[in-house]
């Protein structure tokens, strides 16, 4: 589904990704771990199409199609979803209004009519229940005054509504208490299928206890320096990143 080949990317002339290779197939969950500043969030932004990141070299293929020329919204229409580490506030725009706009814009791009209000309502109810979100929450301004946990839950709610092909969860566990973590992870697990894929970006093992990855990659200095199975995550939790830095540095 997603194929990244020798990807180099920079921001403000500073190279951050220095040759990433990654293949994610439908039905898989990949975890990307690594110390601060290793380029994890940059990788997420580059896949999603954030403008200030310049792709210097390499390719990002989605279902075999090079997406470099596509704007962020076009990538979203193709099923790329990014759960933000720091979701932004949009005052005066309710959670419901925002997701309704997102869904209908995506449908419009595919030449479909707006989703009938009845169906939309039904879907919102279903997905809100899945993530244990109450009705009042849906009428609040997007992310305005939300706690860290509410913000992340809202991100996963949007993911549930948009039903993406490829979901990238950027530090979704940060700011979550243990209950919220369980709810969010539970939601993601229920949304997983053989037709979609999830990339989980995280510092810590604890989220991976709930969302079990098929593969774990360690990103360091803009490269994937080690890949393995979920055992690798345990090893990192135990020993930290220093041994990897040494291995690479050598």
């Amino acid at each position, binding site marked *: 589904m997603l194929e990244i080949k020798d990807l180099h990317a920079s921001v403000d002339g500073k190279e951050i990704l220095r040759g990433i290779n990654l293949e994610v197939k439908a039905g898989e969950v990949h975890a990307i771990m690594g110390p601060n500043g290793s380029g994890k969030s940059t990788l997420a932004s580059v896949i*999603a199409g954030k403008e200030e990141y310049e792709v210097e070299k390499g390719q990002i293929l989605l279902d075999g199609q090079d997406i470099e*020329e596509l704007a962020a919204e076009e990538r979203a229409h193709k099923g790329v979803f990014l759960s933000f580490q720091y979701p932004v506030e949009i005052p*005066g725009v309710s959670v419901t209004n925002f997701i309704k706009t997102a869904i209908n814009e995506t449908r419009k*791009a595919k030449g479909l009519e707006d989703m009938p209000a009845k169906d939309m309502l039904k879907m919102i109810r279903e997905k809100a229940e899945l993530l244990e979100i109450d009705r009042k929450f849906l009428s609040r301004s997007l992310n305005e005054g939300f706690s860290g946990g509410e913000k992340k839950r809202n991100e996963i709610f949007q993911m549930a509504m948009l039903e993406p092909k490829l979901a990238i969860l950027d530090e979704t566990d940060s700011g979550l208490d243990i209950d919220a973590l369980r709810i969010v992870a539970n939601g993601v697990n229920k949304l997983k299928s053989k037709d979609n894929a999830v990339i989980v970006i995280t510092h810590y093992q604890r989220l991976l206890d709930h969302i079990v990855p098929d593969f774990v990659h360690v990103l360091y200095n803009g490269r994937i320096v080690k890949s393995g199975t979920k055992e690798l995550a345990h090893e990192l939790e135990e020993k930290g990143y220093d041994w990897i830095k040494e291995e690479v540095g050598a």
Partner: protein
Amino acid sequence: MSKYTEDDLREELKTKEYEYGFYTDIESETFPIGLNEDIVRAISKKKEEPEWMTEWRLEAFKAWKEMTEPEWANVHYKKPDFQAIAYYSAPVAIDPNKTLDDVDPDLLAMYKKLGISVDEQKMMNNVAMDIVVDSVSVATTFKKTLGEKGIIFMSISEAIKEHPELVKKYLGTVVPQKDNFYAALNSAVFSDGSFCYIPKGVRCPMELSTYFRINQAGTGQFERTLLIADEGSYVSYLEGCTAPSRDENQLHAAVVELIALDDAEIKYSTVQNWYPGNAEGKGGVYNFVTKRGLCETNAKISWTQVETGSAVTWKYPSCILKGDNSVGEFYSIAVTNNYQQADTGTKMIHLGKNTKSTIISKGISAGKSQNSYRGLVQISSRADNARNFSQCDSLLMGNECGAHTFPYIEVKNKSAQIEHEATTSKIGEDQIFYCNQRGIETEKAIALIVNGFSKEVLNKLPMEFAVEAQKLLEISLEGSVG
């Protein structure tokens, strides 16, 4: 990755030109340019006005000659040459005795272009309309339906003839002839406008609406609106404005006077979309307007305005809270783009006891525009327990525009409670990217963010017009973020 280049931006703007910028070729009768006593007399004569009205105009003209244009507003423009403007222009096809069916088909076609087919308005919407093109009121629909309730809704020219006692009693009582430079000019030369009277205890069953349009080149529009809500009555009134695209600046100096007698309520909404000039700042309407309402005991006046047009706007819809327990409200969205300049706000004058006022102002600046809020809250010494809440929010797009806030507060009574809040924010690239990532393209994202920002005010508009206003906001800001 696709970039939004200069060329894209230009292409975008090309398609977003002022939608109402057409000129309809209707035969017009226009007075020679320039202003003197003879012109004032001629206007009055043309309109077959009684002697007292002519004298009233001349008095205003005399005062105006001694006055100078105000310069305190935060706007910069080439002063209009008042001797280079024609002060009267009327489509000749109009005969007040004709019914709608007899109206010049070109005129009717123009309304259609404006999206306000009179027939449709009649049938579909519960809206009574008066349409003022250039200087003359063209058609007042629904007159009969309203008449049954004793509501008078007609052009001010007709009212001067048919209801002189009401006009004489109230005209100039809220905005005196000598109030300010533009009000004095308007008082001398106003050519038409709307008049409305709601009798005691009557709740006006429909929205009343006036539609203004400047058509003829080199003319100014000076309309006068006088609205009287008698004791215990209620009315909701809406005015909309457009003008064709022209390279020269057109002058619009209107006066609106509202009188809410005891226990009456007036809701006055404006959607102003005069031609703003082109992207280089050439042309556009100078919108110098005086709007003021007077509240007697327990009365309420609520101003709601959506200002997206005009090259220069100078406008402060105000409330004089004369009666005890009276309430004044001002809800405003002002959008400026390209080289537009707006200096707008309100004055809340608290004279009575327990008077209350609310001010919510939302300024949105894009391009190279300047957007100022200017407001006065005045509590007089005998206004015990007066309360005011003001909130002024500014939203900036890009790095070349400006937002300014000039709040003035004068309090002479210790029991007053006054709150003022102000915020300034910028549409961030992060917000746009967030929307993009959810499949919402940039233009739509801006519209969404702007609508969210303006929501408190949009909610105050009558339903039918809220949708229109929302669309207008989108059109005004399209292509403003590259």
